[in-house]
Protein backbone atom coordinates (compact mmCIF):
# COMPACT_ATOMS: atom_id res chain seq x y z
CA UNK A 1 0.00 0.00 0.00
CA UNK A 2 2.52 2.48 1.17
CA UNK A 3 4.96 1.19 -1.40
CA UNK A 4 2.57 1.81 -4.26
CA UNK A 5 1.96 5.35 -3.18
CA UNK A 6 5.67 5.95 -2.85
CA UNK A 7 6.09 4.70 -6.39
CA UNK A 8 3.63 7.28 -7.67
CA UNK A 9 5.58 10.04 -5.99
CA UNK A 10 8.91 8.95 -7.44
CA UNK A 11 8.96 11.64 -10.16
CA UNK A 12 8.35 14.22 -7.46
CA UNK A 13 11.24 12.98 -5.32
CA UNK A 14 13.41 12.87 -8.39
CA UNK A 15 12.48 16.45 -9.06
CA UNK A 16 13.41 17.44 -5.50
CA UNK A 17 16.74 15.73 -5.88
CA UNK A 18 17.64 17.16 -9.28
CA UNK A 19 16.12 20.60 -9.26
CA UNK A 20 16.10 21.47 -5.57
CA UNK A 21 18.72 19.64 -3.54
CA UNK A 22 21.37 19.69 -6.21
CA UNK A 23 21.05 23.42 -6.94
CA UNK A 24 20.93 24.22 -3.21
CA UNK A 25 24.10 22.24 -2.64
CA UNK A 26 25.67 24.13 -5.50
CA UNK A 27 24.58 27.39 -3.88
CA UNK A 28 25.96 26.36 -0.51
CA UNK A 29 29.21 25.32 -2.11
CA UNK A 30 29.43 28.62 -3.98
CA UNK A 31 28.66 30.68 -0.91
CA UNK A 32 31.81 29.38 0.74
CA UNK A 33 33.93 30.32 -2.22
CA UNK A 34 35.82 33.55 -2.50
CA UNK A 35 36.50 35.29 -5.78
CA UNK A 36 39.69 33.31 -6.24
CA UNK A 37 37.84 30.05 -5.73
CA UNK A 38 39.25 29.21 -2.31
CA UNK A 39 37.21 28.13 0.71
CA UNK A 40 36.27 31.13 2.81
CA UNK A 41 33.70 32.53 5.21
CA UNK A 42 34.21 36.03 3.92
CA UNK A 43 30.86 36.23 2.05
CA UNK A 44 28.80 35.42 5.10
CA UNK A 45 30.87 37.79 7.17
CA UNK A 46 30.45 40.57 4.61
CA UNK A 47 26.72 40.04 4.50
CA UNK A 48 26.19 40.24 8.23
CA UNK A 49 28.53 43.15 8.85
CA UNK A 50 27.58 45.32 5.90
CA UNK A 51 25.11 48.07 6.63
CA UNK A 52 24.13 48.12 2.98
CA UNK A 53 23.10 44.47 2.84
CA UNK A 54 21.28 44.52 6.15
CA UNK A 55 19.28 47.64 5.28
CA UNK A 56 18.44 46.08 1.97
CA UNK A 57 17.18 42.90 3.63
CA UNK A 58 15.04 44.94 5.98
CA UNK A 59 13.69 47.00 3.09
CA UNK A 60 12.82 43.89 1.07
CA UNK A 61 10.98 42.61 4.10
CA UNK A 62 8.95 45.75 4.54
CA UNK A 63 8.00 45.90 0.88
CA UNK A 64 7.11 42.23 0.70
CA UNK A 65 5.00 42.64 3.82
CA UNK A 66 3.18 45.66 2.42
CA UNK A 67 2.59 43.95 -0.92
CA UNK A 68 1.18 40.88 0.84
CA UNK A 69 -1.12 42.93 3.06
CA UNK A 70 -2.38 44.98 0.11
CA UNK A 71 -2.92 41.89 -2.01
CA UNK A 72 -4.78 40.12 0.77
CA UNK A 73 -6.94 43.15 1.52
CA UNK A 74 -8.04 43.37 -2.08
CA UNK A 75 -8.27 39.67 -2.84
CA UNK A 76 -10.08 38.36 0.22
CA UNK A 77 -13.33 40.31 -0.23
CA UNK A 78 -13.13 39.74 -3.97
CA UNK A 79 -12.80 35.99 -3.45
CA UNK A 80 -15.58 36.00 -0.87
CA UNK A 81 -17.97 37.90 -3.11
CA UNK A 82 -16.98 35.77 -6.08
CA UNK A 83 -18.14 32.61 -4.34
CA UNK A 84 -21.59 34.15 -4.09
CA UNK A 85 -21.97 35.03 -7.76
CA UNK A 86 -23.89 32.89 -10.17
CA UNK A 87 -21.21 31.81 -12.65
CA UNK A 88 -18.44 31.93 -10.08
CA UNK A 89 -15.94 29.72 -11.94
CA UNK A 90 -16.30 31.83 -15.04
CA UNK A 91 -15.83 35.10 -13.17
CA UNK A 92 -12.83 33.70 -11.37
CA UNK A 93 -11.26 32.82 -14.71
CA UNK A 94 -12.05 36.26 -16.01
CA UNK A 95 -10.19 37.80 -13.08
CA UNK A 96 -7.21 35.46 -13.51
CA UNK A 97 -6.99 35.99 -17.26
CA UNK A 98 -5.01 39.28 -17.19
CA UNK A 99 -2.13 37.29 -15.74
CA UNK A 100 -1.68 35.60 -19.07
CA UNK A 101 -0.76 38.86 -20.71
CA UNK A 102 3.00 39.11 -20.75
CA UNK A 103 4.30 40.72 -17.58
CA UNK A 104 6.84 42.91 -19.34
CA UNK A 105 4.14 44.25 -21.60
CA UNK A 106 1.86 44.99 -18.66
CA UNK A 107 4.73 46.79 -17.01
CA UNK A 108 5.14 48.92 -20.11
CA UNK A 109 1.41 49.64 -20.01
CA UNK A 110 1.84 50.82 -16.43
CA UNK A 111 4.74 53.01 -17.48
CA UNK A 112 2.39 54.57 -20.01
CA UNK A 113 -0.39 54.95 -17.49
CA UNK A 114 1.80 56.48 -14.79
CA UNK A 115 4.14 58.59 -16.91
CA UNK A 116 4.29 62.37 -16.91
CA UNK A 117 1.92 62.63 -19.88
CA UNK A 118 0.09 59.41 -19.04
CA UNK A 119 -3.50 58.58 -18.29
CA UNK A 120 -3.49 59.24 -14.56
CA UNK A 121 -1.72 62.55 -14.94
CA UNK A 122 -4.08 63.69 -17.67
CA UNK A 123 -6.90 62.91 -15.30
CA UNK A 124 -5.22 64.82 -12.48
CA UNK A 125 -4.60 67.70 -14.83
CA UNK A 126 -8.21 67.68 -15.88
CA UNK A 127 -9.31 67.82 -12.25
CA UNK A 128 -7.09 70.85 -11.84
CA UNK A 129 -4.55 69.11 -9.61
CA UNK A 130 -1.72 69.32 -12.10
CA UNK A 131 0.59 66.53 -13.20
CA UNK A 132 2.51 64.74 -10.48
CA UNK A 133 5.63 62.66 -10.89
CA UNK A 134 4.20 59.18 -10.36
CA UNK A 135 6.66 56.96 -12.09
CA UNK A 136 9.76 56.03 -10.10
CA UNK A 137 8.07 56.38 -6.76
CA UNK A 138 7.70 53.80 -4.05
CA UNK A 139 3.93 54.08 -4.21
CA UNK A 140 3.75 53.12 -7.85
CA UNK A 141 6.08 50.21 -7.16
CA UNK A 142 3.66 48.97 -4.50
CA UNK A 143 0.68 49.43 -6.80
CA UNK A 144 2.18 47.55 -9.70
CA UNK A 145 3.63 44.77 -7.54
CA UNK A 146 0.25 44.31 -5.87
CA UNK A 147 -1.42 44.23 -9.26
CA UNK A 148 0.92 41.50 -10.43
CA UNK A 149 0.47 39.39 -7.30
CA UNK A 150 -3.32 39.59 -6.88
CA UNK A 151 -4.19 36.46 -8.90
CA UNK A 152 -1.76 34.39 -6.87
CA UNK A 153 -3.71 35.29 -3.74
CA UNK A 154 -7.18 35.29 -5.27
CA UNK A 155 -7.11 31.72 -6.49
CA UNK A 156 -6.22 29.86 -3.27
CA UNK A 157 -8.49 32.04 -1.13
CA UNK A 158 -11.37 31.54 -3.53
CA UNK A 159 -10.89 27.80 -3.50
CA UNK A 160 -10.83 27.67 0.28
CA UNK A 161 -14.00 29.73 0.70
CA UNK A 162 -15.72 27.90 -2.11
CA UNK A 163 -14.99 24.66 -0.35
CA UNK A 164 -16.84 25.53 2.80
CA UNK A 165 -19.89 23.41 3.06
CA UNK A 166 -22.96 25.58 2.54
CA UNK A 167 -24.84 23.69 5.20
CA UNK A 168 -22.39 25.04 7.80
CA UNK A 169 -23.27 28.55 6.78
CA UNK A 170 -26.98 27.81 6.84
CA UNK A 171 -26.70 26.08 10.19
CA UNK A 172 -24.98 29.09 11.63
CA UNK A 173 -27.69 31.39 10.34
CA UNK A 174 -30.47 29.10 11.50
CA UNK A 175 -28.96 29.23 14.94
CA UNK A 176 -29.44 32.98 14.80
CA UNK A 177 -25.91 34.14 14.10
CA UNK A 178 -25.68 37.52 12.42
CA UNK A 179 -24.04 37.78 9.06
CA UNK A 180 -20.86 39.12 10.59
CA UNK A 181 -20.87 36.45 13.24
CA UNK A 182 -21.27 33.75 10.58
CA UNK A 183 -18.41 35.23 8.66
CA UNK A 184 -16.06 35.57 11.59
CA UNK A 185 -16.79 32.25 13.28
CA UNK A 186 -17.46 29.98 10.31
CA UNK A 187 -16.13 31.30 7.04
CA UNK A 188 -12.99 33.08 8.16
CA UNK A 189 -11.51 30.22 10.21
CA UNK A 190 -12.37 27.69 7.52
CA UNK A 191 -10.76 29.77 4.78
CA UNK A 192 -7.48 30.24 6.62
CA UNK A 193 -5.79 27.37 4.79
CA UNK A 194 -6.33 29.25 1.54
CA UNK A 195 -5.04 32.48 3.03
CA UNK A 196 -1.96 30.59 4.16
CA UNK A 197 -1.27 29.27 0.65
CA UNK A 198 -1.89 32.73 -0.73
CA UNK A 199 0.45 34.46 1.70
CA UNK A 200 3.17 31.96 0.95
CA UNK A 201 2.64 32.34 -2.78
CA UNK A 202 2.86 36.14 -2.56
CA UNK A 203 5.17 37.10 0.30
CA UNK A 204 8.04 34.84 -0.58
CA UNK A 205 8.45 35.83 -4.25
CA UNK A 206 7.88 39.48 -3.33
CA UNK A 207 11.13 39.43 -1.37
CA UNK A 208 13.05 39.03 -4.55
CA UNK A 209 11.20 41.03 -7.20
CA UNK A 210 13.73 42.52 -9.52
CA UNK A 211 12.42 43.53 -12.90
CA UNK A 212 9.85 45.91 -11.43
CA UNK A 213 12.36 47.57 -9.17
CA UNK A 214 14.13 48.93 -12.20
CA UNK A 215 11.28 49.48 -14.65
CA UNK A 216 8.72 50.98 -12.29
CA UNK A 217 10.74 52.17 -9.32
CA UNK A 218 13.82 53.27 -11.28
CA UNK A 219 16.00 51.45 -8.75
CA UNK A 220 14.70 53.57 -5.91
CA UNK A 221 13.56 50.38 -4.33
CA UNK A 222 16.33 47.86 -3.91
CA UNK A 223 15.31 44.36 -2.93
CA UNK A 224 17.40 41.29 -2.29
CA UNK A 225 16.46 40.21 -5.79
CA UNK A 226 18.08 43.27 -7.34
CA UNK A 227 21.32 42.66 -5.50
CA UNK A 228 21.38 38.97 -6.28
CA UNK A 229 20.79 39.70 -9.95
CA UNK A 230 23.71 42.14 -9.86
CA UNK A 231 25.99 39.59 -8.27
CA UNK A 232 25.11 36.86 -10.71
CA UNK A 233 24.98 38.88 -13.89
CA UNK A 234 27.21 41.91 -13.44
CA UNK A 235 29.82 41.43 -10.75
CA UNK A 236 29.92 37.71 -11.40
CA UNK A 237 30.56 37.32 -7.71
CA UNK A 238 28.57 34.12 -7.54
CA UNK A 239 29.79 33.54 -4.01
CA UNK A 240 28.11 36.63 -2.64
CA UNK A 241 25.00 36.07 -4.77
CA UNK A 242 24.74 32.51 -3.46
CA UNK A 243 25.16 33.68 0.12
CA UNK A 244 22.20 36.01 -0.32
CA UNK A 245 20.25 33.20 -1.96
CA UNK A 246 20.90 31.04 1.10
CA UNK A 247 19.73 33.88 3.34
CA UNK A 248 16.50 34.06 1.32
CA UNK A 249 15.98 30.34 1.70
CA UNK A 250 16.42 30.63 5.48
CA UNK A 251 13.89 33.48 5.54
CA UNK A 252 11.53 31.30 3.56
CA UNK A 253 11.78 28.54 6.14
CA UNK A 254 11.01 31.11 8.84
CA UNK A 255 7.93 32.33 6.97
CA UNK A 256 6.77 28.76 6.45
CA UNK A 257 7.23 28.10 10.13
CA UNK A 258 5.26 31.18 11.13
CA UNK A 259 2.39 30.41 8.78
CA UNK A 260 2.41 26.68 9.49
CA UNK A 261 -0.74 24.84 10.27
CA UNK A 262 -1.14 24.55 14.01
CA UNK A 263 -2.54 21.35 15.43
CA UNK A 264 -6.21 21.66 16.16
CA UNK A 265 -5.84 20.75 19.80
CA UNK A 266 -3.42 23.59 20.37
CA UNK A 267 -5.75 26.09 18.77
CA UNK A 268 -8.61 25.06 21.02
CA UNK A 269 -6.55 25.37 24.13
Amino acid at each position, binding site marked *: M*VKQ*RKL*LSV*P*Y*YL*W*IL*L*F*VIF*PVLLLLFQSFRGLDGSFTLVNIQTYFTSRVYLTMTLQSFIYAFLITVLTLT*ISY*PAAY*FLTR*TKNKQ*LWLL*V*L*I*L*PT*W*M*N*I*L*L*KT*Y*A*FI*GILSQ*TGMVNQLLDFMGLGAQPLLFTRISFLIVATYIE*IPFMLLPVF*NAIDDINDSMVYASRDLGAS*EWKTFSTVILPLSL*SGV*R*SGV*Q*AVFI*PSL*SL*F*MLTRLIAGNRVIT*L*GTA*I*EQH*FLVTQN*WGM*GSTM*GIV*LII*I*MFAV*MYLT*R*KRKRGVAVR
Partner: protein
Amino acid sequence: MIKNNKWASLYLVVVFILLYTPIAYLIFYSFNEAGTMNQFSGFTLEHYAALAEDTRLMIIALDTIRVALLSALLATTIGTLGAIGIYYSRRRETQNLLLGFNNILLVSPDVIIGASFLLLFTVVGFRLGFYSVLLSHIAFSIPIVVLMVLPRLEEMNENMITAAKDLGATNWQVLKEIILPNITPGILAGYFMAFTYSIDDFAVTFFVTGNGFATLSVEIYSRARQGVSLEINALSTVLFLVAFSLVAGYYFIQKQQRTRKLAHMDPTNHEKAVTP
Protein backbone atom coordinates in the same frame (compact mmCIF):
# COMPACT_ATOMS: atom_id res chain seq x y z
CA MET B 1 -26.81 38.16 2.03
CA ILE B 2 -29.30 39.62 -0.40
CA LYS B 3 -28.88 43.13 0.89
CA ASN B 4 -25.12 42.79 0.47
CA ASN B 5 -25.42 41.85 -3.14
CA LYS B 6 -25.23 45.33 -4.54
CA TRP B 7 -22.06 46.20 -2.67
CA ALA B 8 -20.53 42.88 -3.50
CA SER B 9 -21.14 43.35 -7.21
CA LEU B 10 -19.85 46.88 -7.06
CA TYR B 11 -16.67 45.72 -5.36
CA LEU B 12 -16.14 43.00 -7.94
CA VAL B 13 -16.72 45.45 -10.75
CA VAL B 14 -14.10 47.80 -9.29
CA VAL B 15 -11.56 44.97 -8.96
CA PHE B 16 -12.40 43.89 -12.48
CA ILE B 17 -11.80 47.39 -13.82
CA LEU B 18 -8.51 47.69 -11.95
CA LEU B 19 -7.26 44.38 -13.28
CA TYR B 20 -8.28 45.16 -16.84
CA THR B 21 -7.09 48.75 -17.07
CA PRO B 22 -3.56 47.88 -18.28
CA ILE B 23 -4.99 45.26 -20.62
CA ALA B 24 -7.43 47.74 -22.10
CA TYR B 25 -4.60 50.22 -22.38
CA LEU B 26 -2.48 47.75 -24.36
CA ILE B 27 -5.35 46.81 -26.62
CA PHE B 28 -6.31 50.43 -27.20
CA TYR B 29 -2.81 51.40 -28.27
CA SER B 30 -2.49 48.43 -30.61
CA PHE B 31 -4.64 50.52 -32.94
CA ASN B 32 -2.49 53.62 -32.59
CA GLU B 33 -1.17 55.15 -35.77
CA ALA B 34 1.69 56.94 -33.99
CA GLY B 35 3.56 53.75 -33.20
CA THR B 36 4.13 54.40 -29.49
CA MET B 37 2.10 53.75 -26.37
CA ASN B 38 1.99 57.42 -25.52
CA GLN B 39 0.03 59.74 -27.77
CA PHE B 40 -2.90 58.35 -29.67
CA SER B 41 -2.92 59.96 -33.09
CA GLY B 42 -5.36 57.92 -35.11
CA PHE B 43 -6.84 54.52 -35.80
CA THR B 44 -4.92 51.99 -37.85
CA LEU B 45 -4.71 48.25 -38.41
CA GLU B 46 -1.17 48.36 -39.73
CA HIS B 47 0.28 46.71 -36.62
CA TYR B 48 -1.98 43.75 -37.21
CA ALA B 49 -0.89 43.61 -40.82
CA ALA B 50 2.75 43.70 -39.71
CA LEU B 51 2.01 40.90 -37.28
CA ALA B 52 0.57 38.72 -40.02
CA GLU B 53 3.82 39.18 -41.96
CA ASP B 54 6.06 38.46 -39.00
CA THR B 55 6.33 34.70 -39.12
CA ARG B 56 9.12 34.59 -36.56
CA LEU B 57 6.88 36.18 -33.96
CA MET B 58 4.00 33.82 -34.78
CA ILE B 59 6.21 30.77 -34.43
CA ILE B 60 7.51 32.07 -31.12
CA ALA B 61 3.97 32.68 -29.89
CA LEU B 62 2.94 29.13 -30.78
CA ASP B 63 6.07 27.72 -29.14
CA THR B 64 5.38 29.72 -26.00
CA ILE B 65 1.87 28.33 -25.77
CA ARG B 66 3.12 24.82 -26.39
CA VAL B 67 5.72 25.07 -23.62
CA ALA B 68 3.14 26.50 -21.22
CA LEU B 69 0.49 23.87 -21.96
CA LEU B 70 2.86 20.92 -21.72
CA SER B 71 4.98 22.09 -18.82
CA ALA B 72 1.87 22.90 -16.79
CA LEU B 73 0.40 19.49 -17.56
CA LEU B 74 3.51 17.60 -16.51
CA ALA B 75 4.11 19.83 -13.51
CA THR B 76 0.52 19.29 -12.38
CA THR B 77 0.85 15.53 -12.70
CA ILE B 78 4.13 15.33 -10.83
CA GLY B 79 3.08 17.93 -8.29
CA THR B 80 -0.24 16.29 -7.50
CA LEU B 81 1.36 12.91 -6.96
CA GLY B 82 4.02 14.64 -4.89
CA ALA B 83 1.39 16.35 -2.74
CA ILE B 84 -0.25 12.99 -2.13
CA GLY B 85 3.16 11.65 -1.20
CA ILE B 86 3.77 14.49 1.24
CA TYR B 87 0.32 14.09 2.74
CA TYR B 88 0.85 10.41 3.41
CA SER B 89 4.38 10.60 4.74
CA ARG B 90 3.73 9.56 8.27
CA ARG B 91 5.99 11.75 10.34
CA ARG B 92 5.25 15.41 10.65
CA GLU B 93 8.96 16.28 10.43
CA THR B 94 9.25 14.51 7.09
CA GLN B 95 6.24 16.45 5.85
CA ASN B 96 7.73 19.74 6.92
CA LEU B 97 11.08 18.89 5.42
CA LEU B 98 9.52 17.93 2.09
CA LEU B 99 7.43 21.06 2.11
CA GLY B 100 10.51 23.09 2.86
CA PHE B 101 12.32 21.62 -0.13
CA ASN B 102 9.20 22.18 -2.17
CA ASN B 103 9.16 25.88 -1.43
CA ILE B 104 12.81 26.57 -2.05
CA LEU B 105 12.18 27.19 -5.72
CA LEU B 106 9.30 29.52 -4.91
CA VAL B 107 11.48 31.77 -2.81
CA SER B 108 14.59 31.66 -4.94
CA PRO B 109 14.94 34.65 -7.20
CA ASP B 110 14.51 33.77 -10.86
CA VAL B 111 18.10 34.67 -11.53
CA ILE B 112 19.40 32.05 -9.12
CA ILE B 113 17.01 29.45 -10.46
CA GLY B 114 18.04 30.27 -14.00
CA ALA B 115 21.74 30.24 -13.20
CA SER B 116 21.60 26.99 -11.26
CA PHE B 117 19.50 25.26 -13.92
CA LEU B 118 21.98 26.41 -16.52
CA LEU B 119 24.74 24.95 -14.39
CA LEU B 120 22.78 21.72 -14.06
CA PHE B 121 22.29 21.41 -17.80
CA THR B 122 25.98 22.07 -18.29
CA VAL B 123 27.04 19.38 -15.83
CA VAL B 124 24.75 16.85 -17.50
CA GLY B 125 25.78 18.04 -20.95
CA PHE B 126 22.22 18.89 -21.98
CA ARG B 127 21.79 20.94 -25.11
CA LEU B 128 19.93 24.21 -24.59
CA GLY B 129 16.71 24.66 -26.54
CA PHE B 130 13.10 23.55 -26.37
CA TYR B 131 13.67 20.68 -23.97
CA SER B 132 15.81 22.63 -21.54
CA VAL B 133 13.15 25.34 -21.41
CA LEU B 134 10.37 22.77 -21.00
CA LEU B 135 12.21 20.97 -18.19
CA SER B 136 12.94 24.23 -16.38
CA HIS B 137 9.34 25.35 -16.63
CA ILE B 138 8.15 22.03 -15.27
CA ALA B 139 10.66 22.32 -12.47
CA PHE B 140 9.69 25.77 -11.27
CA SER B 141 5.94 25.13 -11.62
CA ILE B 142 5.82 21.99 -9.49
CA PRO B 143 5.96 23.73 -6.09
CA ILE B 144 2.98 25.96 -6.78
CA VAL B 145 0.93 22.92 -7.80
CA VAL B 146 1.81 21.23 -4.52
CA LEU B 147 0.81 24.37 -2.62
CA MET B 148 -2.55 24.38 -4.39
CA VAL B 149 -3.29 20.68 -3.96
CA LEU B 150 -2.09 20.07 -0.42
CA PRO B 151 -4.77 22.10 1.43
CA ARG B 152 -7.39 20.12 -0.45
CA LEU B 153 -5.92 16.87 0.75
CA GLU B 154 -5.80 18.15 4.29
CA GLU B 155 -9.46 19.04 4.18
CA MET B 156 -10.43 15.66 2.79
CA ASN B 157 -12.43 13.44 5.02
CA GLU B 158 -10.13 10.55 6.04
CA ASN B 159 -13.12 8.47 7.07
CA MET B 160 -14.24 8.13 3.49
CA ILE B 161 -11.00 6.42 2.62
CA THR B 162 -11.16 4.16 5.62
CA ALA B 163 -14.73 3.31 4.74
CA ALA B 164 -13.84 2.60 1.13
CA LYS B 165 -11.01 0.33 2.20
CA ASP B 166 -13.26 -1.50 4.61
CA LEU B 167 -15.55 -2.11 1.67
CA GLY B 168 -12.64 -3.69 -0.16
CA ALA B 169 -11.51 -0.91 -2.47
CA THR B 170 -8.02 -1.23 -3.91
CA ASN B 171 -5.48 1.56 -3.61
CA TRP B 172 -6.03 2.45 -7.21
CA GLN B 173 -9.77 2.69 -6.65
CA VAL B 174 -9.25 4.84 -3.57
CA LEU B 175 -7.05 7.19 -5.56
CA LYS B 176 -9.35 7.27 -8.54
CA GLU B 177 -12.74 7.34 -6.86
CA ILE B 178 -12.09 9.28 -3.68
CA ILE B 179 -8.85 11.22 -3.54
CA LEU B 180 -8.75 12.63 -7.07
CA PRO B 181 -12.40 13.79 -7.24
CA ASN B 182 -11.95 15.44 -3.86
CA ILE B 183 -8.88 17.38 -4.86
CA THR B 184 -9.88 18.17 -8.46
CA PRO B 185 -10.47 21.89 -7.78
CA GLY B 186 -6.97 22.09 -6.30
CA ILE B 187 -5.50 20.29 -9.30
CA LEU B 188 -7.23 22.65 -11.71
CA ALA B 189 -6.07 25.65 -9.70
CA GLY B 190 -2.57 24.18 -9.75
CA TYR B 191 -2.70 23.77 -13.51
CA PHE B 192 -3.76 27.34 -14.01
CA MET B 193 -1.04 28.63 -11.74
CA ALA B 194 1.57 26.50 -13.47
CA PHE B 195 0.36 27.68 -16.86
CA THR B 196 0.50 31.26 -15.64
CA TYR B 197 4.00 30.86 -14.23
CA SER B 198 5.20 29.46 -17.51
CA ILE B 199 3.61 32.17 -19.66
CA ASP B 200 4.91 34.84 -17.29
CA ASP B 201 8.45 33.68 -16.88
CA PHE B 202 11.26 35.69 -18.29
CA ALA B 203 14.41 35.36 -16.21
CA VAL B 204 14.71 31.58 -16.03
CA THR B 205 13.97 31.13 -19.72
CA PHE B 206 16.51 33.80 -20.55
CA PHE B 207 19.21 31.62 -18.98
CA VAL B 208 18.25 28.21 -20.28
CA THR B 209 17.21 28.98 -23.83
CA GLY B 210 19.51 28.68 -26.77
CA ASN B 211 20.08 27.37 -30.27
CA GLY B 212 17.34 29.47 -31.76
CA PHE B 213 14.49 28.60 -29.41
CA ALA B 214 12.77 31.58 -27.79
CA THR B 215 9.63 32.34 -25.85
CA LEU B 216 7.54 35.47 -26.12
CA SER B 217 8.88 37.15 -23.02
CA VAL B 218 12.49 36.70 -24.11
CA GLU B 219 11.63 37.99 -27.57
CA ILE B 220 9.68 40.94 -26.19
CA TYR B 221 12.55 41.78 -23.88
CA SER B 222 15.07 41.85 -26.68
CA ARG B 223 12.78 43.89 -28.89
CA ALA B 224 11.94 46.27 -26.06
CA ARG B 225 15.33 47.93 -26.37
CA GLN B 226 13.86 49.96 -29.17
CA GLY B 227 10.73 50.71 -27.14
CA VAL B 228 8.01 48.10 -27.39
CA SER B 229 6.72 47.88 -30.93
CA LEU B 230 2.97 47.96 -31.18
CA GLU B 231 3.11 44.77 -33.19
CA ILE B 232 3.61 43.06 -29.83
CA ASN B 233 0.49 44.80 -28.55
CA ALA B 234 -1.38 43.50 -31.56
CA LEU B 235 -0.15 39.98 -30.91
CA SER B 236 -1.11 40.18 -27.24
CA THR B 237 -4.55 41.45 -28.17
CA VAL B 238 -5.09 38.52 -30.48
CA LEU B 239 -3.80 35.99 -27.95
CA PHE B 240 -5.88 37.54 -25.20
CA LEU B 241 -9.06 37.44 -27.24
CA VAL B 242 -8.39 33.83 -28.20
CA ALA B 243 -7.81 32.87 -24.56
CA PHE B 244 -10.87 34.78 -23.50
CA SER B 245 -13.16 33.15 -26.04
CA LEU B 246 -11.69 29.70 -25.32
CA VAL B 247 -12.40 30.12 -21.62
CA ALA B 248 -15.89 31.49 -22.18
CA GLY B 249 -16.63 28.88 -24.85
CA TYR B 250 -15.43 26.01 -22.74
CA TYR B 251 -17.44 27.25 -19.82
CA PHE B 252 -20.69 27.50 -21.75
CA ILE B 253 -20.27 24.15 -23.46
CA GLN B 254 -19.76 22.59 -20.05
CA LYS B 255 -22.78 24.33 -18.73
CA GLN B 256 -24.92 23.14 -21.59
CA GLN B 257 -23.74 19.60 -21.13
CA ARG B 258 -24.66 19.84 -17.51
CA THR B 259 -28.17 21.04 -18.27
CA ARG B 260 -28.53 18.32 -20.88
CA LYS B 261 -27.50 15.74 -18.32
CA LEU B 262 -30.14 17.09 -16.03
CA ALA B 263 -32.61 16.75 -18.88
CA HIS B 264 -31.69 13.08 -19.11
CA MET B 265 -32.71 12.65 -15.55
CA ASP B 266 -36.05 14.16 -16.29
CA PRO B 267 -38.69 11.47 -15.61
CA THR B 268 -40.22 12.07 -19.03
CA ASN B 269 -36.94 11.02 -20.56
CA HIS B 270 -37.01 7.78 -18.71
CA GLU B 271 -36.75 5.50 -21.72
CA LYS B 272 -33.69 7.27 -23.02
CA ALA B 273 -32.07 7.16 -19.64
CA VAL B 274 -32.42 3.41 -19.19
CA THR B 275 -31.48 2.34 -22.70
CA PRO B 276 -27.69 1.96 -22.81
